[in-house]
């Protein structure tokens, strides 16, 4: 590799890395917690609504759905989502689309009443053109008696971190994250160019007695090389998941000449496009349907999508993971009118494109893995986060002398180091509020999310004002450790017996998360003190 090439690669790597460092850090940071999304969700929910046994008598699903829908202004032009209980989660999550207003509900009902009085085709066209509703209700339901436990989606921390991971909770964030991930792929490539000759020779190099700049350089390089396959996989799959639209459009117009149906068939990506008929229809026995699919496809159905429920054109989509496979997803579309599984909609089995993409998606999400492997994923994600901070410190340390006291350095320090290290206390505060805010508080979820943003902003301002970047990083770590220590004390004193009771009832995740919080608190305090001593 020529010297000029490496020099250009170092420049590109440094500048692109600095520009994308904050969003990239947030993506990896939130992604690390998303690996344990189910566990965090259970930790938040089960402590407030504990159950005694994991094996409980369940109400027939049809009865549960019917009695729930009776209490709501349900709009059956959109689909209901049902997340069924599993061995680790005792509740049903149900998302029901509702009319935006009573007037809108009346308008749709009036049109349905016109059935038969005007030609069928015109009737269906007019019905499809009525304004769409946007409202929905997110419910937490006890499957034993159908009782609605919460209807204000109070426990949103796990979902918030997931959304942060793939969209940064910003408008058009999906594409922004895709773009950031694409540039991450570019810095992985330029990183390989820079380190190509030293990949093995400098693998164990850590100059602890040298200046910060060399220490950070060594940390950045070693973590970068160790996590290279992991980082490459995430960069590639991240772009594929978030920027697929950039590939779909040219493929549709250039290869398929705009024939979307053929493209979707080749890709194995079916979608229900049928609109409601306006005719009422009785729904099948959902429990029996789930049992049939479970037996015939060797799976445990976890999720139902009920399209046009109560209508003649109703469809039911059943999702689960096939047993004894690499998280192979089973997705069956059931047509209610004739009780069939239409071949046109059940293409996944045949398309190798779908299988390949699904495999990459599984590797990305680690949904095939147990707690042990997800823990390794978590450590690697934290390693990448550490590498980003080390990279930022390296950039600042390199320019500390030449840009001393300048606004450029302060802004770079505030935006990059503050944005990255600030995410740690921001997450700690969000966890603390998720545990302590009252469940009935209407703006509970919003408060948790806004608190994250506010703490992050405060940290960025603090980093801008604080010239001693090591001092700032150390304070971030120690503050986070204190917040998590308070959370641990609350967990032990207020919820200790509940968490142990849940553990005995085989719901191990809540206590597991509580112990992890305590462990992370100790770890952060140790790192914070260590960084402060070196300061």
């Amino acid at each position: 590799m020529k010297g000029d090439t490496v020099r250009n690669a170092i420049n590109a790597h440094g500048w692109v890395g600095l520009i994308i460092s904050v969003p990239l850090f947030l993506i990896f940071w939130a992604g690390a917690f998303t690996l344990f999304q189910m566990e965090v969700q259970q930790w938040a929910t089960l402590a407030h609504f504990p159950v005694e046994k994991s094996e409980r008598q369940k109400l027939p699903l049809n009865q549960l759905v019917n009695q729930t829908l009776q209490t709501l202004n349900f709009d059956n032009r959109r689909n209901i989502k049902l997340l069924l209980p599993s061995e680790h989660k005792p509740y049903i999550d149900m998302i029901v689309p509702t009319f935006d207003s009573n007037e809108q509900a009346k308008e749709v009902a009036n049109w349905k009443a016109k059935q038969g009085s005007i030609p069928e085709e015109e009737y269906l066209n007019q019905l499809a053109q009525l304004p769409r509703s946007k409202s929905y209700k997110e419910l937490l339901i006890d499957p034993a008696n159908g009782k609605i436990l919460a209807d204000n989606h109070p426990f949103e921390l796990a979902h918030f971190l997931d959304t942060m991971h793939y969209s940064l909770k910003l408008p058009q964030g999906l594409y922004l994250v895709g773009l950031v991930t694409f540039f991450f792929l570019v810095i992985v490539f330029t990183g390989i160019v820079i380190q190509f000759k030293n990949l093995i020779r400098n693998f164990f190099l850590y100059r602890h007695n040298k200046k910060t700049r060399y220490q950070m350089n060594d940390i950045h390089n070693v973590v970068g090389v160790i996590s290279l396959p992991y980082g490459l996989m995430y960069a590639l799959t991240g772009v594929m998941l978030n920027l697929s639209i950039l590939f779909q459009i040219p493929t549709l117009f250039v290869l398929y000449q705009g024939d979307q149906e053929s493209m979707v068939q080749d890709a194995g990506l079916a979608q229900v496009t049928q609109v409601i008929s306006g005719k009422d229809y009785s729904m099948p026995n959902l429990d029996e349907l789930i049992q049939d699919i479970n037996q015939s496809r060797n799976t445990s159905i976890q999720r139902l999508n009920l399209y046009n429920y109560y209508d003649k054109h109703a469809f039911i989509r059943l999702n689960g993971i096939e047993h004894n496979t690499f998280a192979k997803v089973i997705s069956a579309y059931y047509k209610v009118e004739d009780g069939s599984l239409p071949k046109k909609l059940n293409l996944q089995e045949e398309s190798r494109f779908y299988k390949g993409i699904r495999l990459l998606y599984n590797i990305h999400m680690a949904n095939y893995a147990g707690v042990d492997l997800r823990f390794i994923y978590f450590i690697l994600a934290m390693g990448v986060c550490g590498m980003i901070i080390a990279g930022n410190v390296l950039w600042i340390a390199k320019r500390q002398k030449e840009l001393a006291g300048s606004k450029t350095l302060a802004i770079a320090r505030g935006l990059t180091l503050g944005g990255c290290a600030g995410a740690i206390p921001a997450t700690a505060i969000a966890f603390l509020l998720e545990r302590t805010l009252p469940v009935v508080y209407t703006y509970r979820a919003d408060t948790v999310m806004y608190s994250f943003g506010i703490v992050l902003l405060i940290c960025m301002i603090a980093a801008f004002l604080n010239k001693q970047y090591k001092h700032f990083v150390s304070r971030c770590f120690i503050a986070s450790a204190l917040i998590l220590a308070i959370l641990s004390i609350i967990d032990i004193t207020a919820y200790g017996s509940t968490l142990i009771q849940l553990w005995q009832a085989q719901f191990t995740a809540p206590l597991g998360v509580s112990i992890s919080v305590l462990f992370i608190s100790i770890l952060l305090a140790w790192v914070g003190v260590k960084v402060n001593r070196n300061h």
Partner: protein
Amino acid sequence: MLNVAYSLPIDRDIYLLIGFIGGVLLWAGIMSYFYCANTLKPIAISFAVFIVSAAINTLFYTQAIS
């Protein structure tokens, strides 16, 4: 070169999969190459290849819709 490669004897679903993964890697690879380059020559060559590819695809597209 989407249409030229499309005439290869590969099933469509496999072609789409290779195209999707390969497309992302190629895109990032070319960008990294540009960053590392000292002169505009490789960029000019890549741009010329892109123009030829776009012309072939446009030809296929216009023939198909006419």
